Each structure stands twice: as C-alpha cells, then as structure tokens.
C-alpha cells in the first residue's frame, strides 16, 4: 500500500520522538509519527489492581523478552551481563521509567579533553541548556535550585519530599562531608498544567495512574495532536528506503494486520532508542549502503553504552518507609562524579538513593536483580526483621564507549513481522569494574555513617535486568569516519535522515539520560528549523 507523502516522518512516539515533533510543529509542516506500540490508558495500569506486583513478571515487565506482547520485538542478550529493557507504546519507556531527571554535567561533554578517554561531544552544556529548561517546563520537573554540581538553573516545581529514607541517608553524607542533593524528578510536586501532583503511590515503574509522572503520552502528545501532528499506532517500520538521489525517501512499515505500507517523506527522523535505531538502520540495506543506511563508517550499532548498576543495602534500626514515595528519586550524591587522578579509574559515578521496592518484588529478588529470598522460616524472618528496615544506595557508573560493545542483527531471531531482531554483545569495561569496587566501598561507608546497623548486601553484582539507558550506537561527531550524525543530529551519509534518541550520545555520563535525550531532540528540532532553507547542503 502506498500512502500520501508527508513532510516529516518520525519513527517512534517516545521521549525523543514527541519532543522533536513539538519543536517542528511550529513550522506547520505535515508531520507523521509511526509507533509500533499502542496507546496505553492509565485505567489499565497494574497499579489499579491488588495484584499489581505480579505484572512486573508478565505484561508490564520492563524486559521485552518477558512481556512478549505483539508490539514487542525480542532482544538477544545472551552475550551480555546486562539486558536492555524498554516499553513499546505511545510514550515509550517514559511509561515505565522512574522519572529520575538529573542533567549531564558540563564536564560530560568534554571527557577527551579532560581525561583523555572516549571523545568530546561536538556540542556543550551551554548549547543544550535552553532546551533542558523548555523540556523541564513541558514535562513538569520538580527539584531544588542551587545544586553546586551544576551551573545555576531552577527547576519549575519545588522538590519532592525526600522521605525518611532520604533524610537518613543525607545524614550519612553530611557526616562524611560528601556532596548530596535532592534529586530532580519528572514527577509533579504540585499540580502543573492540568496534571495532578504525586500521591506517593510508589510504583512508578508500573505506569503512573495519577499522571503525576511525566510520560510523553500525557505531556507532549496531547499538545501535538491538537497541533495537527498525526500519530499511527501499531505500525512497525521495517526499513528506511533510499531514493535514487541518495536521500532517504521514506520507510516501509507493517500495520497491525501485517499489511506492508510504503510511506514517503521529505525528512525522516529516527527516535527508536539506542537499540531500536541501530537495528532499524542495520536492517535498511541497499546497493549504496549494503551494511545499513548511513553506515559508511561501519560504526552503526557499535559503542553501545548502558549505565552498569550495582547496589549496596544497609539495615537500620528504624523502619525506612522505602515504599512510600516515588521509587527512583530521593537524593543523590555526586561526590565521586568527576575524575580524580588519585583513583585507579577515570570519570566517575553517582550514588543514588532510590526508595525501596514493594514486598513481593523484594521477595522475588529485588528490582533489576535476582536475589530471591528463601521460603519458610527464613522468609518470615526476612520480611519481619529486614524488609522494613532496609535502605540502599544504587551505584550508577559512567560507561565508556568501546566498539566491541555493540548491537548487531541476530541471524535467526525475528519479531512477529519477520524483521531481524537485535543481538547485544557487551562486556563490562575494566574501568567500570574498578569503579564498582570503589563505589561499593563508598556506599557501604555512607550507609554506616547514616546509622546502618550492618551491611546486608555489600554489592559485587551487576544488575542484569537494568539496561534502561541505551546510548552511543549512532554517535554524534564532526568526523564522518568516526561518527554517524553531525553536531545537529543529521546523518553524515544521508542528509535528510536525522537521529534524535540516545543512540547519538558520544559518552554516557553517569546520570539517567532522559532529560538529555529530550533536550537534544529539541535542540535538533531547533537546528532543523534554523536550517530549513538549506537543510540538505
């Protein structure tokens, strides 16, 4: 089937696709977004049901291989200690993310200059700053101004309550004289633009029924639909097609009934995350690009970065009320964020105090981990004597880009449309391992300083089901041989093909990437608008 051509075609209706659609709708161009997932409704979220925790192991698992819904594509992560997680729906992973919202540090954009590793970004913090601010306002971000780890900025809403757990851990950081700050969160501390504030239900990963957590289906998309941006759901793009002029001329996609459509467009924008985007590019083969579209450099899919995570848990004398309040974000310490030459690793990490998970998930092994607690008497003891009194620190490490960590096409595995599925090949960097050792020791120190009676889990285990942050697989740069897109997201090889998701990150920083992904998408939209007359020069 052949559809009416459009001006702008965006693949993916998640965080970055929605943001760039908003930026571009100002031009009144005909914009179409294709999304392989459906609309999800807050009435159907698991948190509406008493057995909500069970959904973490079935239809609302963060792991697409566990969910196995029609809209999901399988990911072969057998050769990786970390498995990528996502969500396929309008809103993408903002539906089941935790809304933790730290920005990158200015240093994160120039690690080559500062530390001699990886590469510098072709843009800096100042370039993105106005777009961080715009996005914070649209998403509705809560936080406290004045964090000394950043240039000055003011989140639009006051910070979320830190909770008992946050206050306790803050005392530990104070004791040691370490940096800490209440986390920025894309969760409303006050009613904002028609959305109601957080009620501390605490299961942000199962969809926010209140609508206090900013998922783009309730922030950007209502604005976009009223501005005439079209969105087709359950449409899975097979490949980006190349015209005889060397420009992308559209895509081929399957609709819900499996019919193949040809959709022509003047501009194609990929917003499918750090695994989905390279997969789509590698699947888009042509005479000119036998190894995938815009891949003359051969690095599409390479340099995959996660944020390897680990955790340390302490046992306190008082109940920590960890289940109360937004899961991911209470306070974080960035005392060890920047490089210190006296340590045996470069770059650094954050110590994040998320709140604690719900009882059944704790029983079944934890959030992102698999430390099953036993049945019988020992089960009873752990639930009574441990669970309420636990508080932990999550170690979030900067992952350095390495070409051997990559997304390729699996030779056999496909999705339900027969499109080759991605395969992940990934090993932990030696730098990361040394960082973990340092970080876990510091986390233990902080928990003990905060009054922990003992350390019940000392770390030493990388969270497996925690590949939330998918970055680096189609990176930005000025050198076409070492990067896929230029400083404003345009493919070096195909001048009307843009990428706006985490794929274009040059380095990973050591913070959750969503606010930076969206700021980048807005910045790229702005660059497209400024360059419209000579976009393909």
């Amino acid at each position: 089937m052949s559809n009416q051509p459009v001006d702008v075609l965006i693949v993916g209706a998640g965080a970055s696709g929605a943001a760039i659609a908003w930026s571009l709708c100002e031009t009144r161009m005909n914009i179409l977004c294709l999304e392989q997932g459906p609309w999800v409704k807050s009435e159907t979220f698991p948190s509406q049901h008493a057995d909500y925790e069970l959904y973490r192991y079935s239809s609302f698992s963060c792991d697409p291989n566990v969910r196995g819904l029609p809209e999901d594509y399988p990911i072969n992560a057998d050769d990786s200690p970390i498995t990528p997680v996502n969500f396929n729906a309008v809103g993408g992973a903002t539906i089941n993310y935790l809304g933790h919202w730290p920005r990158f540090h200015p240093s994160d954009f120039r690690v080559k200059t500062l530390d001699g590793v990886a590469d510098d970004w072709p843009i800096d913090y100042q370039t993105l700053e106005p777009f961080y601010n715009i996005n914070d306002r649209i998403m509705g971000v809560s936080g406290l101004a004045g964090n000394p780890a950043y240039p000055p900025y003011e989140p639009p809403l006051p910070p979320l309550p830190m909770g008992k757990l946050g206050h306790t851990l803050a005392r530990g950081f104070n004791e040691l004289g370490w940096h800490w700050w209440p986390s920025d969160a894309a969760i409303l501390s006050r009613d904002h633009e028609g959305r109601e504030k957080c009620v501390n239900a605490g299961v942000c990963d199962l969809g926010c029924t209140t609508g206090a957590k900013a998922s783009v289906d309730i922030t950007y998309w209502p604005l976009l639909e009223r501005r005439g941006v079209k969105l087709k759901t359950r449409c899975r793009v097979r490949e980006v097609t190349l015209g005889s002029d060397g420009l992308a001329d559209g895509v081929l996609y399957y609709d819900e009934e499996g019919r193949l459509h040809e959709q022509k467009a003047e501009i194609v924008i990929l917003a499918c995350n750090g695994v989905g985007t390279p997969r789509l590019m590698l699947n888009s083969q042509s005479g000119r690009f036998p190894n995938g579209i815009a891949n003359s450099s051969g690095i599409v899919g390479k340099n995959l970065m996660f944020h390897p995570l680990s955790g340390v848990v302490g046992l306190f004398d008082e109940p920590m009320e960890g289940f109360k309040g937004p899961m991911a974000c209470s306070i974080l310490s960035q005392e060890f964020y920047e490089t210190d030459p006296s340590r045996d690793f470069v770059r650094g990490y954050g110590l994040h105090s998320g709140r604690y998970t719900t009882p059944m998930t704790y029983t079944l092994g934890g959030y992102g981990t698999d430390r099953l607690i036993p049945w019988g008497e020992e089960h009873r003891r752990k639930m009574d004597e441990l669970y309420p009194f636990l508080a932990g620190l999550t170690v979030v490490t900067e992952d350095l880009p390495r070409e051997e960590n990559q997304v390729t096409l699996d030779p056999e595995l496909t999705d339900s449309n027969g499109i080759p599925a991605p395969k992940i090949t990934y090993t932990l960097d030696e730098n990361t391992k040394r960082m973990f050792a340092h970080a876990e020791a510091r986390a233990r120190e902080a928990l003990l300083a905060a009054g922990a009676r003992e350390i019940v889990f000392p770390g030493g285990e990388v969270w497996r089901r925690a590949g939330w942050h998918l970055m680096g697989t189609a990176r930005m740069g000025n050198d076409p041989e070492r990067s896929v897109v230029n400083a404003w997201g345009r493919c070096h090889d195909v001048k009307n093909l843009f990428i706006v998701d985490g794929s274009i990150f040059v380095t990973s920083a050591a913070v959750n990437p969503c606010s930076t992904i969206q700021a980048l998408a807005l910045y790229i939209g702005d660059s497209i608008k400024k360059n419209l007359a000579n976009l393909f020069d």
Partner: protein
Amino acid sequence: MKILVPIRRVLDTDQKIQISSDGSLDDTGLQYVINPFDMVALEEALRIRENSGKGEVVCAAVGTDDLEIQLRTTLAMGADRALLAGIDSQVDHWSAAVILQKIVEAEHPGLVLVGERMAVDDADMTGSFLAALLDWPQATFASQITVLGDDVQVDREIDQGIETIILPIPTVVTCGLRLNEPRYASFRGQMKARSMPIERMSPNDLRTDLQPRWETLNLKLERSNRDCVFVESVDELVRSLRFDAKVLE
C-alpha cells in the same frame, strides 16, 4: 484580485502561561502560532486565488521582528508576499487597524480577509476598525465566501442562523473557523519561503502617528486551584455554600 491578510500571533492556546514576578508575561519555552482565525483567513485567500487562477495574496503583520517566523509560515503555505510593519511596543487593535489602513492604501487590495477575532483576548475589533477607517463595507463572522465578479457573497453566522449578503469590492471580511481547514506548510514551501524577502516598513514609512487606545497595567492568572473541603452533613454543606462560598442566598 489582490487579497490582503493581516497576520497576528498568539501563544499556543493549549499551553499554560505564567506571569513573572514583575507582572509581565513569562513566555519562556512557549510557542507562538498564527492566530487560528487569521490562519483560516489566509487559507480562504489562497483558495480564492487558486480557484480563480490569478491574483495575489499578501500577508501583513504589525509588531516586533519576532513575527517574521509567522510570516515565513504564510509564505511556506503559499502567500505571494509578506509585509512586516515593525513596531517595538505592544500593538492594540486600534493601532493595528491604523497601520493596516496605510498598508491597504498603498497596496490597493480588493479584499481584506482578517480573522474574526484574536484567540488571545477574543476581541473582534481589528477588522471592523479597519473597515471604518477605510470607509469600506464589511461582512463579519463569515462562514462562506464566494467571489462574484465585482461583488463578494458572504454567509454570516448570526444569532438567528446564517445571513447571506452581497457586498461590492473592495471590502473587509472577517473570517470564522467554519470557513475551511487550513493546509500544512509543506517542506518544499518552507525551503522556498526561506529565500523570499520579508518586506519591512516602519511607522515613519507609513506616515502614521500611533496613539494606542489601551495600556496593559498588569497581568494576573485566574486562580485555578480548586479547594476541596469534606463536610459531615447536608446542613454543614448548606452552611458552607451560604456563608463560605456565598453562592446561596
């Protein structure tokens, strides 16, 4: 026939505005759009030109340089020319009409199609002020426009239904949202529009002395937080409605 379409911009009405501490509008990160009623007027002008196979559509904006973005959009949609009467201060409906009068006198359009009102303040004054200043006939609240040789037939939406009138050209018609569905501004159109000039003029060029008829003293947001009070009994509810909310006598 030449058709003049005045273009004004408004904040995207789906976004919530905020007021800064100094009482001014804080528009950080908010997008401006062409006043939706003006957009309908432009679409109508383009269709009249396309149906007749001849003529010219000229868009004119009165205000700051920021309006260039909206004027470029009109060119991308298909307007032939765009004029910007640059004024630094806030432009009220009267001042806009005074300047538009000068533009009309220089351009000699047969039709002025203008949005029937501004989405920002719901005021429907500009078109009528302009018709009065020009001493031209006017048809307001149009839901259909047909050009008949030297006349134009307009269906007007009035309280009793639709009123059809015929006016001699030149005339001013103010356009309602039912007229049409405005088109997209295509990418090819955008590329073309970027290389087209925006013709600029100042109040001096127009030999007019602006005397604004209104002044903004301050802005404030309507309180939108609803207070929720739980009451124990019907009596208490009635008491509360009567004495606290003062909605019952």
